[in-house]
């Protein structure tokens, strides 16, 4: 946010009042965002622990935590699992399924559409702990609903297929946002264009590719980036698998929780948090850059 030094004072506030106007927000951002980020960097350079001597008297260990993290197989596994989680549940799952639902429902009105929308929305607005309980009941090895439906007693979905389980779970959980966004976006596609395309003999796929997609490209971009960021930082899978069994579903947010709070390595956890912050910043910068490029293209 630039200080109000611009020669064209559009709001007519004057410098003093403009500063006074922006100051509370800047202070809040400083206290709650900038300071914690800097503090995280500092903690990441220490051997700070939750208990024991290093809790009372942490020592600086330099970049030790960062080199340990980057050389640690568990951290690298966790990054790879997070990539799978984001690709599977955010991009293919939420964005893909959300678009499919929006496309199928675009011309429908009446009870079917309302029912589908209500169900998809419900999974989005329920509290995380309730949802986790429902999914554990569904996937449980002993007496789980899914095993009863499929007739596969004793199949341990959360243990044998932890990643697919949390990917399907997160797709189910977050599709509503993408569906609503694409529903709104598809309203922007003029029906006359689609009609013209149909008259010219375009197949459904060709209509999608040549008429719909160019119109909603910006929405797709926003949607994919938002859901990726949200999914990348999502902690809810912890409620299902706690990162287990033996770390096979330990995505980065769960990894940080496990090392920092369960194992008590606060300094190391802070270092990993900072690495995650950097990845998030890269995401966000890419998003801003793409958004700006779009605005610069006329039309």
């Amino acid at each position, binding site marked *: 946010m630039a200080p109000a030094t611009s020669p064209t004072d559009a709001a007519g506030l004057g410098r003093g009042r403009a500063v006074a106007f922006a100051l509370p927000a800047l202070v809040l951002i400083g206290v709650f965002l900038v300071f914690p980020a800097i503090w995280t960097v500092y903690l990441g350079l220490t051997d700070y622990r*939750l208990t*024991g001597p290093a809790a*009372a008297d942490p020592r600086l260990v330099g970049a030790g935590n960062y080199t340990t993290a980057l050389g640690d197989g568990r951290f690298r596994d966790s990054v790879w699992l997070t990539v799978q989680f984001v690709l599977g549940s955010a991009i293919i799952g939420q964005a893909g399924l959300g678009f499919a639902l929006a496309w199928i429902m675009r011309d429908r009105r009446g009870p079917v559409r309302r029912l589908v929308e209500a169900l998809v929305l419900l999974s989005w607005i329920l509290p995380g702990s309730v949802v986790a309980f429902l999914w554990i009941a569904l996937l449980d090895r002993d007496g789980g609903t899914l095993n009863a439906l499929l007739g596969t007693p004793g199949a341990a979905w959360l243990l044998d297929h932890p990643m697919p389980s949390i990917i399907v779970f997160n797709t189910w959980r977050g599709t509503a946002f993408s569906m609503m966004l694409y529903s709104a976006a598809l309203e922007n596609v003029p029906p006359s264009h689609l009609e013209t395309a149909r008259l010219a003999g375009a197949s459904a796929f060709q209509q999608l590719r040549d008429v719909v997609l160019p119109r909603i490209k910006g929405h797709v971009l926003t949607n994919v980036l938002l859901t990726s*960021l949200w999914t990348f930082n999502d902690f809810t899978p912890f409620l299902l698998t706690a990162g*287990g*069994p*033996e770390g096979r579903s330990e995505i980065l947010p769960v990894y940080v929780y496990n090392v920092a*709070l369960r194992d008590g390595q606060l300094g190391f956890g802070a270092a990993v948090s900072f690495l995650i912050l950097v990845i998030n910043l890269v995401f966000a910068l890419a998003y*801003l850059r793409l958004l700006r490029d779009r605005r610069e293209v006329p039309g």
Partner: protein
Amino acid sequence: MRLFHRPVLIATLTTAVLTLPACGSGTPAGKDGVTLTITANAISGGKNTAAAEWIKQWVIPRFEAAQKAAGREVRVLFQPNGVGDEQYKTKVALDLKSRTGADVIDLDGIWVGEFAQAGYLKPLTELGGTAVETWEGWKQIPQAVQGLGIFDGKKYGLPQGTDGRVLYYNRDLFGKAGLPEPWQPKSWQEILDAGAALRRLPGVTPIQINAGTAMGEATTMQGALPLLAGTGTEIYTGGKWAGSSQAVKDVLEFYRQIYSGGLGDPKLQQEAKGRDKSFAEFADGRIGILAEGDYFWRAVVDPKTGVAPMAERDRVVGYARIPAKRPGAGVRGQDFVSMSGGAVRVLNPFSEHPRQAWELLSFMHSAEAVKAELAGAARVTSRSDVNAEVLAADPMLRFVSEEVLPITVYRPGLAVYPQVSAALQEATADVVSGKPVQEAATAYRAKVERLVGGSGNISD
């Protein structure tokens, strides 16, 4: 960026606004009275329900009445928890780190060292004053049990009692499998033999020896350490930690025989709620042999207050000492082994009313209170006078006190122990998920070496 920041800001603001009035008034007192808070990993209708009921129904009204009689207005609140031990530990550590939390806190004795080193605890005399030294209870608590609350020669907490690990078995299943009863295995092989016989029963998991990381310290305490003691080794002796010695490999090999040989359920060891499930399965007659502390008898399968109650516990559940690998192969040349620990209650050093908190704490450990806590149930308490009275009442209590406590081993109260314990849990997890024993032992040794500062601190 702005898109993400706005909700964050709103959330932070809301949290700040909501929590501000709470700041600085962690103990909302009545008019010019004192309010004290007790916390424990106990909750009515859930985990350790009997302890929660005792605090709410007995301790609080009686302590408040006693204080009132002395002309003081004191209110006592109970802050219940019903979570895994590791989560409870994290919560209490975070409370103390931010200089808040309850005035009287329940802790596992093994955490006292690392909490004290972190500055989260202070010796009782520094908080409670001279009243601590003159407390009548000290002479009733045996030295070994007092040790649960001692770190670096200073008393940080009052022990609640101690416990011992045994093998529980289902007598009905043993009868069906044609196994002898009463059963007392004399070697690891005899446990495996019994398991092989139980395996023929449909729907029955023969043996449950806790393994893996999901069960946390329960894996170490109920599984790896009693087995290690059965090979004649302790995790920490003579200033050195056990590395990838033959003893550790023997323990891991025993795990392999159970979980790769179809005698145990490997999946159960990986489940997030595996330990609770093992309780439910044993109570349901689906597990033959299970290694647990006496906690299992009095809080899990207890017909009235257990989390997995067994109406016919006294008839169905048998118990036996844990054998050494071979007769005479255990620590100190013993034939049988066990592990002991115990909970303590500590004072919060950041309490606004430490003197009153000590009064409450010592009140909770008076003979009268300890007897009320038992409420007729089986439990080895910290007080000899109470034990002498209640010992006769329950055969299981007598068994633990007379047969198990004399042969038991305590864990090292060092800050690094929980991390070594975690490494040991990971080694069992490796073996249960099918990795070779040698590989698991080597990985364990590498981790311990990093934790304890080089191979000079490892016994081999």
